[in-house]
């Protein structure tokens, strides 16, 4: 019997592949976002409005992750947004190999912005880097203001937080202060946007942020 020291990162292989893909995407000056939330928080609705607003300024592709069905990709296509569906058939998260596989048939030279909508789940997707530049957590007012303290890793690993369905605030007991205190405790670099897909409130600010980030993206600046 002997002991072999390994000290090896178990997320290492996904991380390596994610770093390789990120490099490839950056070579094409593509900015990538990984959107994580619980099911029903409004990710697809936000993407619908985003796609419509940005269609004249950025060439966008959406990769939709769901356990079953092509519904979300179809929803987006009906609005003229390019979308590819991944059906995980039971898996609770996307990993970077699924993204690379889908991108193999995409002409990256024709792309500026890649939005990945992860499987609706606040736990598993938080452990897998998908080669994104920004991780976005979407949390809606009807889910309650305790999500950041209940699912700290989802907020800890995010760069941006969209608080969605703010039009429903009068009908819920959601406390914006409670939510933001919890989220800042998990991650004090988190940037917040308050959005509603019914009234479109906040959607313009979020889209302006996307365009601004894309213009200032390090991969673009370094090649100009």
């Amino acid at each position, binding site marked *: 019997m002997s002991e072999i020291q390994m*000290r090896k990162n*178990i997320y290492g292989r996904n991380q390596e592949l994610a770093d390789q893909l990120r490099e490839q995407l950056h070579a094409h000056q593509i900015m990538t976002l990984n959107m994580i939330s619980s099911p029903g928080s409004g990710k697809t609705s936000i993407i619908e409005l985003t796609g419509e607003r940005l269609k004249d300024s950025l060439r966008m592709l959406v990769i939709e992750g769901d356990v079953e069905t092509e519904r979300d990709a179809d929803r987006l296509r009906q609005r003229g947004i390019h979308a590819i569906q991944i059906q995980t058939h039971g898996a*609770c998260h996307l990993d970077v190999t699924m993204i690379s596989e889908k991108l193999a048939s995409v002409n990256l030279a024709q792309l500026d912005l890649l939005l990945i909508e992860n499987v609706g789940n606040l736990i598993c997707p938080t452990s897998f880097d998908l080669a994104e530049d920004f991780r976005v957590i979407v949390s809606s007012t009807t889910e309650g203001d305790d999500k950041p303290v209940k699912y700290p890793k989802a907020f*800890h*690993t995010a760069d941006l937080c969209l608080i969605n369905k703010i039009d429903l605030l009068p009908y819920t007991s959601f406390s914006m202060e409670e939510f933001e205190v919890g989220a800042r405790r998990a991650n004090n670099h988190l940037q917040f946007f308050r959005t509603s897909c019914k009234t479109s409130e906040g959607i313009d600010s979020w889209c302006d942020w996307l365009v601004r980030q894309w213009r200032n993206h390090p991969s673009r600046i370094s090649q100009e």
Partner: protein
Amino acid sequence: MGTDSDYGLGDRFLGKLYLTGKKRICILLYGEHMHELSIAQEILRMISSEQARQGFQSVSRIKLRAGALSGINPRSLQFAFEVVRADTCAARAEIEMEVEPLEILCRTCGHRMKGEHGPRNCPQCGSPDVMLDARTYFEIVSLEVT
């Protein structure tokens, strides 16, 4: 009807195993596949490439270490590992997983508190600027082999 455990066969995950009140068993095929299963498969893959390098016969213990926010539940990982380890050099291996405790750090005075449900303000200096101080890493530390 409560979820009793997850059910798999070989490297194929099949679904959740439910036990009803009268102990009737019902397996929901293609239920939610927990991410610990992908992790257990990755651990096996890493062990088998280590075996190719070092040439040991079998593994009796796998020592793992995780940050407080690794996202890995030790019991789920144990279960997933038992599902995938059959017919490998780790078929009889025990998993030993050490998880760092979750800590809250006061950014004003540096005071540390254990656990995620700490007070809203720092008990030492009263500052509201407290944050989770936790890491997300997950690693294989060592293998006991023969």
